[in-house]
């Protein structure tokens, strides 16, 4: 395989990373809201949250992506396939992250929240200064796992026509008739990205632990 082909694959990695990172961040925001709904004392709200999580964790991501990719235009939203892919991945990861965050938020000691109440912190301040940092620290290892899952799952958006790493390898192997080296190179690139994420997350976890000691 020539250097030129490999560089094309490396370029396509950029899209894989952009799609994954955007989905993880959007999924974290949506997942926080869903986990709040699940933990809510309002019956209907918690049922809605649990149904959301159950559905998006229960159906295969590929089917979800095909559904969303074809559903959006039906609703009058003619968005590029890239956007549909990000919406699909975000909804799916939101469900997994909501389940993780639910545990994190539930583990915030009530004493801390009572203390915050005494100090006159508003609910919003309590969320940003107490609940969110503790929940995030608790769920960081799960979040790392989820990030790696999404990086791998992003290969499925190739079926809705987004030219990311997998699709690039597919297109190049169709035009060069060299599937073996191209898919092997793509696999290697996924390994490298995931390795970097895992290493970075370990460093982040360590610094978080120092932060909590200080």
């Amino acid at each position, binding site marked *: 395989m020539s250097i030129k082909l490999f560089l094309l694959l490396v370029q396509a990695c950029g899209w894989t990373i952009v799609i994954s990172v955007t989905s993880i961040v959007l999924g974290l925001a949506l997942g926080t809201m869903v986990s709040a709904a699940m933990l809510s004392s309002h019956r209907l709200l918690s049922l809605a949250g649990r149904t959301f999580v159950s559905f998006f964790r229960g159906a*295969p991501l*590929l089917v979800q992506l095909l*559904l969303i990719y074809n559903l959006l235009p039906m609703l009058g939203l003619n968005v590029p396939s890239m956007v549909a892919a990000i919406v699909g991945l975000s909804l799916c990861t939101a469900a997994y992250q909501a389940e993780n965050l639910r545990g994190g938020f539930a583990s915030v000691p009530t004493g801390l929240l009572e203390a915050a109440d005494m100090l006159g912190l508003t609910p919003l301040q309590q969320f940003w200064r107490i609940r969110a940092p503790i929940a995030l620290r608790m769920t960081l290892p799960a979040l790392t796992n989820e990030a790696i899952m999404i990086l791998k799952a992003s*290969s*499925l958006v190739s079926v809705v026509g987004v030219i990311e790493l997998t699709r690039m390898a597919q297109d190049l192997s169709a035009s060069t008739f060299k*599937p073996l080296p191209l898919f092997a190179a793509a696999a290697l690139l*996924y390994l490298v990205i995931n390795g970097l994420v895992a290493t970075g997350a370990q460093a982040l976890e360590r610094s978080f632990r120092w932060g909590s000691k200080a």
Partner: protein
Amino acid sequence: MKFDLDLIVSLAPELLRAAGLTLTTWLGGALAALVLGFAVALGRRYGPRFLDSALRAYVEVIRGTPFLIQLFLLYYGGPFIGLSLDPVPAGLLGLAVYGAAYFSEIFRAGFESVPHGHVEAGECLGLDRAQIVKRILIPEMTMLVLPPTVNMLIVLLKETAVLSIITVPELTFQISAIGSEKYAFVEAMFLLACFYWGLVELCGRLGRTAEARLSRYRFANT
């Protein structure tokens, strides 16, 4: 969208066959993955060091790359190294190789959870390695490995949908084809999602029931 009962009745045999293929590839692939995963875990525990390193590399590569890429390598790359497979066997092999990596890690953690003293006690009593695995390791780790094993079975069920991309005529493949043919793709995909959802929920329930049963047995005897 109008509900067309005749259409569904006329498609019923085809859909049933596709659903059957989804279930058989899932169960067949999962069973092979369980056996292979157990063998990998045993190889890493009892095999020589180079075997442990080789198996570890296999596990890391499989767990670090997307299932779809593995399938492409197998299905499109395979013929270049003399491994020409039809879609269904390629899918089964892909599921087995993929699942085995994850199962082997589950079993490895299970082996490690068994206290050393129990294994040593078995050795003192003159049990051989196979007996120790069968009589001590497996019974003691069952409770611990059951939840992640059920979880992985569910993951594998959902991964069978990916086999449609290498043209395995399972449910996702057939329903996409029918959906586009009848101009009812979104409805078809929604029903398909609900089918998997129901099956996944059912598996989760069964897993929890099995767990409750097993733990009752265990605690009744201690």
